[in-house]
């Protein structure tokens, strides 16, 4: 362990900790934009700068190692002023269209601009780049007019999904996130998992499927397990007015043990079948080759009567039940219980082989 002083408090942290980790361990909040605990460190946005006694320059806490005897100030007047300048520099390329942005209310950049009182940037003399928003893929909206170049999307694509579809193109004021040759995502190795949306601290990357359907402060997030393949990823269904309007990630491995928030294209963007107008909403009975709507009482009485008749006439082994790899354990349990105890046969199976 090593000892250092943060904001006048002497604290102990394990050797090898960064200053950011030292602060987090002791409940001291430091603003970060490019930092992500699951990704390689970038140290590029500089929001996490802190002041260290006897050092001429401010240190980026996310990449600076904590050292024995350091005396750190995280919110000194000089630091506050410097962070304002940093935010203004980042804001120079940011389109403040918060009122129509899907990330409104769930945007780290907006939060910090609010906290530090940044309304506009003094550094827009040459005007900012205007990027066209025209990627035709149906999943991901890429609006680089809101991008602050934290590169979390690049690192998530490379380190979590390992698709390596995007990188930084050009340098300095002209830098931009792009696929090879700055083309469309569908012409790149992108697999549309949306991990980039998961890590983006602004509204630069959002879901086209959820666009306009509800912002973070309007939705409830219900933690559940994905309905597609057998991996068993944890995801959050975003619910507004009793409708699912999107999917978000829970990145805490204590709640998302398999995937730690990572999803695939089906898990993240394949939820809208839930609201499909094709959903069955009432029991149907076929008469003369045509379906007609029926009440539950009528339909279930008919099913009960017909199953009983077949059982009585041909014996229980003339009946069979196909249960489902899609429904819950509880329902599968009842399906085989129903087949064995009520129908009286072991003719129960599901699509494990298909």
């Amino acid at each position, binding site marked *: 362990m090593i000892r250092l002083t943060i904001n006048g408090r002497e604290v102990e942290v394990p050797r090898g900790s960064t200053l950011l980790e030292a602060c987090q361990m002791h409940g001291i909040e430091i603003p970060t934009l490019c930092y992500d605990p699951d990704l390689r460190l970038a140290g590029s946005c500089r929001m996490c700068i802190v002041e260290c006694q006897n050092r001429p320059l401010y240190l980026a806490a996310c990449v600076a190692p904590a050292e024995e005897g350091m005396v750190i100030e995280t919110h000194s007047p000089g630091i506050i002023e410097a962070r304002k300048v940093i935010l203004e520099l980042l804001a120079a390329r940011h389109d403040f269209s918060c009122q129509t942005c899907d990330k409104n209310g769930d945007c780290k950049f907006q939060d910090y601009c609010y906290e530090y009182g940044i309304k506009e940037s003094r550094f827009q003399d040459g005007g900012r780049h205007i990027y066209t928003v025209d990627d035709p893929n149906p999943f991901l909206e890429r609006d680089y007019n809101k991008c602050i170049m934290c590169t979390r999307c690049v690192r998530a694509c490379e380190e979590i999904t390992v698709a390596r579809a995007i990188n930084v193109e050009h340098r300095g004021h002209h830098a931009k996130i792009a696929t090879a040759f700055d083309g469309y995502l569908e012409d790149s190795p992108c697999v549309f998992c949306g991990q980039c949306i998961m890590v983006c601290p602004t509204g630069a990357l959002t879901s086209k499927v959820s666009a306009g359907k509800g912002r973070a402060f309007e939705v409830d997030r219900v933690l559940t397990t994905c309905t597609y393949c057998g991996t068993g990823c944890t995801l959050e269904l975003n619910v507004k007015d009793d409708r699912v309007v999107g999917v978000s990630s829970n990145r805490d491995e204590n709640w998302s043990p398999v995937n730690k928030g990572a999803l695939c294209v089906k898990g993240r963007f394949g939820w809208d079948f839930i609201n499909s107008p094709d959903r069955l909403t009432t029991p149907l009975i076929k008469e003369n080759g045509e379906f007609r709507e029926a009440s539950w009482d009528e339909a279930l009485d008919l*099913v009960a009567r017909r199953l009983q008749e077949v059982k009585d006439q041909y014996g229980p082994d003339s009946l069979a039940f196909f249960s489902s790899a899609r429904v819950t354990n509880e329902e599968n349990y009842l399906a*085989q219980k129903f087949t064995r105890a009520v129908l009286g046969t072991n003719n129960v*199976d599901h699509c494990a082989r298909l």
Partner: protein
Amino acid sequence: MTNSIGELEKDARCIFVIGSNPTENHPVIGMKIKKNVLYNGAKLIVADARYTDLASIADVYMPHLPGSDVALLNAMINVIISEGLADQKFIEEHTEGYEEMAKVVSKYTPEYAETITGVPAEDIRKAARLYAQSGPATICYAMGLTQHSTGTDNVKSVCNLAMVTGNIGRPGAGVDPLRGQNNVQGACDMGCLPNVYTGYQAVTNEAARAKFEEAWKVKLPDKNGLTLTETINKAHHGEIKALYVMGENPMMSDPDLHHVEEALKNLDFLVVQDIFLTETAQLADVVLPGACFAEKDGTFSNTERRVQRVRKAVNPPGQARADWEILCDLATRMGYPMSYDSAEEIFAEITSLTPSYAGMSYQRLEGKGLQWPCPTPEHPGTAILHKDGNFTRGKGAFSAIEYKAPFEVPDEEYPLVLTTGRSLFHYHTGTMTRRCQALDEHVPEAKLEVHPELAAKLDIADGERVRLSTRRGSIEIKVQLTERLRPDVVFTTFHFAEAAVNWLTQSELLDPVAKIPEYKVSAARIDKI
């Protein structure tokens, strides 16, 4: 899976993927494998007729002819034994039947296997050495290995390979079938199989049957029932008269749809309970509207045996009801009262009757869930089965397995091998994903993958519609040229009703043990339209 998903990201030093395309079918598992291989130095071997995304980063890629898995695996074992790479200590202490297996395998030299699989002998040697010498090694397989008339043999061969090198029961060393559906593991665990109750307790075991008879207060049948594929055949013969289908779509997912359609139409009574009017539901006498995963509470069990919570987020549409509520109502109407206040109450009944789930409760599942076996309320769950080579059955049994050709081999009339699978952007019979706006916009139709060499020979172009035929029938389908597969193999997905490939697959010869259909090998031909 004998092991856990997380081990594929760090512990496994070699991963052998055979008959599985994780980056499309289990994408998050695919991501972990890629990470391990590209950033963590793990070795990767891929055996697949298609050059998958993982094949492109593999140390050894073996494009074996569909249906030649046993020959390939036997040859790898042959190399391991003949080059002295076998784990003799593990074999002696933890296994039985080695001699018989070794005797059969001795004739499968890499050169002999090359004549069956089409994989160069030297690549088989390289793969065998990598698998045996890299440290803890895991085999991942999926339906590419199992959907064969020799599916059971293929899986046993994979187990032979793991046991001969002692790659079982340690972190990163195991045999991992990647299960394709959210709760296919759970449906099996819950006894939705014709021969077992929950937790794989045999219906023919008198003690198990007595336990369930006492709990359910009813006399239970004592002989094994019919598998799904057998049920369809018996319905066709008229022996099965009524069928209840809950959340399944055999009119898309089953082999030889002509046969399935005839069988379902031959029933006296068909009930389908689903969330959409599926191809199967359209043939039903009564359709009952169920609730989807977002509309009910419960649990799913994933491929690593982890039981996790499913939570209700919204109400079902209209009068639709949770499937468990419908079943309870129906059982009660049939004179067997079933009543539960909640899914949690059903789960408590499950745990009381299922030793491998006995230590679980909804309270304990909060957070990370639990991996079975979890026999007591204090038990932490089981991340790795057969720990340290101590097999559940005692000693690990080697099987001596000879290669058998698939049911259908290409001939003059049907010179190609047709193999089927899934796309990243769709799921199974497309019931859900075809109704997801973005997914269906991105991949709106089936494509037949054809190698450019074959296309040139047949004078067909990229995007051209062709007739794809087998002995069962024909479909029309659009061609996509790709060098991803062997020129003697063509591939398509089974998600699309407009070009449902299961009109073409065969249901005559199933795997004799598992009754799994041979989706991965049909003799086929392509004709210009």
